[in-house]
């Protein structure tokens, strides 16, 4: 079982490596990160803060886009092209296939994140911007956001087409980052229905702001261990639930 898992995982990684879209995105990610150094010309006093903020934001945008692109189309593409027929008919359970495919995606994203992170740190070093603990932590917490979005993309793609999956996942990305604000706004409303809706959105939908430590990184503010560990556990647990739901749906699906 472990061998099958790794075979599918590494195959997913190999697929992404040979996919031109991934390569082009990785190339542009490099360009974007390096271009953040151009801000030396427009900012002097807050140079380090802006550089960290823009660098981390660029990394986040590229990786989030890639995670949505990779996860939402993957299963539906496998089903539509019927490549799945020659894998799930092997001695491999559908659950294992799905989890291994997700692991392959995460391996690709992790490799890119490590590369981009290294590039960003190199840039900081060259431009003499101090690398602080919160900066490293902000890079690390992005991984949990990518995991959660990938799991959501997989869940959607286990029963819906790529367009629907991408639409829902992108929407969830925005709602997930705004859920705190939505809750605050709803609480101030006099309409009881809106208050309940705000609460539901806040508690049921993923709160992606928990993984956004870019503000703390750019201001060099330490994040208590308890806070980021709790956020990590929250990310893992939420992703596990999404994967479990995806497996449940995927196991019952007919491949016509």
């Amino acid at each position: 079982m472990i061998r099958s898992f790794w075979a599918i995982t590494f195959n997913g990684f190999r697929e992404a490596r040979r996919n031109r879209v991934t390569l082009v995105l990785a190339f542009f990610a490099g360009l974007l990160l390096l271009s953040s150094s151009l801000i030396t010309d427009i900012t002097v006093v807050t140079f380090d803060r802006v550089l960290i903020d823009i660098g981390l934001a660029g990394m986040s945008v590229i990786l989030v886009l890639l995670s949505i692109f990779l996860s939402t189309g993957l299963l539906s593409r496998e089903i539509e092209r019927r490549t799945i027929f020659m894998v799930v008919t092997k001695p491999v359970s559908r659950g294992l296939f799905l989890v291994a495919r997700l692991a392959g995606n995460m391996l690709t994203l992790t490799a890119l994140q490590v590369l981009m992170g290294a590039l960003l740190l190199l840039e900081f070093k060259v431009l003499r911007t101090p690398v602080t603990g919160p900066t490293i932590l902000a890079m690390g917490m992005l991984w949990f956001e990518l995991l959660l979005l990938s799991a959501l993309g997989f869940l959607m793609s286990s029963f819906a087409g790529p367009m629907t999956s991408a639409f829902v996942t992108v929407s969830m990305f925005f709602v997930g980052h705004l859920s705190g604000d939505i809750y605050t706004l709803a609480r101030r409303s006099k309409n009881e229905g809106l208050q309940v809706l705000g609460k539901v959105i806040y508690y049921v939908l993923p709160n992606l702001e928990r993984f956004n430590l870019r503000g703390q990184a750019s201001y060099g503010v330490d994040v208590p261990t308890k806070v980021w560990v709790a956020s990590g556990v929250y990310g893992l647990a939420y992703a596990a639930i999404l994967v479990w739901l995806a497996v449940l749906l995927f196991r019952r699906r007919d491949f016509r």
Partner: protein
Amino acid sequence: MTATPIELHGLSKTYRLGFLMNRKVRALDGLDMTIAPGQVYGLLGPNGAGKSTTIKIVMNLVQATSGTARLFGKPPTDTAIRRMVGFVPENPAPYEYLTGREFVQLAADLGGVPQSDVRARTTEVLESVGMTRAADLQIRRYSKGMIQRIALAQAVVHRPALLILDEPTSGLDPVGRRMVRDFILAERQRGTTVLFCTHIIPDVETLCDRVAVLVNGQRVREGGVAELLSKSNPQMEVVLDGLSEAKVRSLGRTLDEVQTLDTRLLVRCRDAEAQQLVAQVLQAGGRVITLQPTRFTLEDLFLQALGEAKHGTVGGEIL
């Protein structure tokens, strides 16, 4: 005792279609089928007869609405039992970004081939399907025939006891078809049980021990190929000389067809009629030149079964 490779009892499948899933199409209707070890079993039927649905249920790609399917005594959901099964879907689609060798190696890893044997086994099967030279090209560069060869290679790399092929020769040129036929014959020689479905009748006639004809999701014929053909051999062909057509017709026998061939007559009639006709012709001073059964092919059987079926159409029964 070896477990039966495939046993199907009362297998039915109804697909729900449409946005609200309120349209139903019955693809399979109470199918019973047993395939004994070592048999090459052909599933014949027109498009939409339920052949692919049967195979997909057996391979756990589709879940039956009712009835049971057993692979070596286990349900198709049992992942371990699939170590004993090799499968080639209709229009196989291996990962295009892999080379043929990488894809077969992936299949070997998933099929449980011991790690130390993967390389050797991959090379061996690639050679057996004639893909050694193109093995290191990406599959996106392959022709349809080459993809079929790779699909066959990945299906047997773990040496399965049962091979299931869905329309293995469809869309192939004569060379490709010949290769697939030789491949199936080689597997049969090794003792592998083979189930394949097709609507290319000569392939079934050449390769199969047993055959089932499906129409509208139901089995309308089943048996050994020779047995089915002999059972369905209703006509005799008699060539006579020395008597006119009118004279032959006046002998009082029921004749299905009479044709004049120069000075001779070609008569087609039922076997029992033919025996008496011959005696009467000889008595009337005529000569019997030949007496032979008309060749009844599987194609005739197939068309006969299709004609007898309720709808005799394609695409499953819409409920």
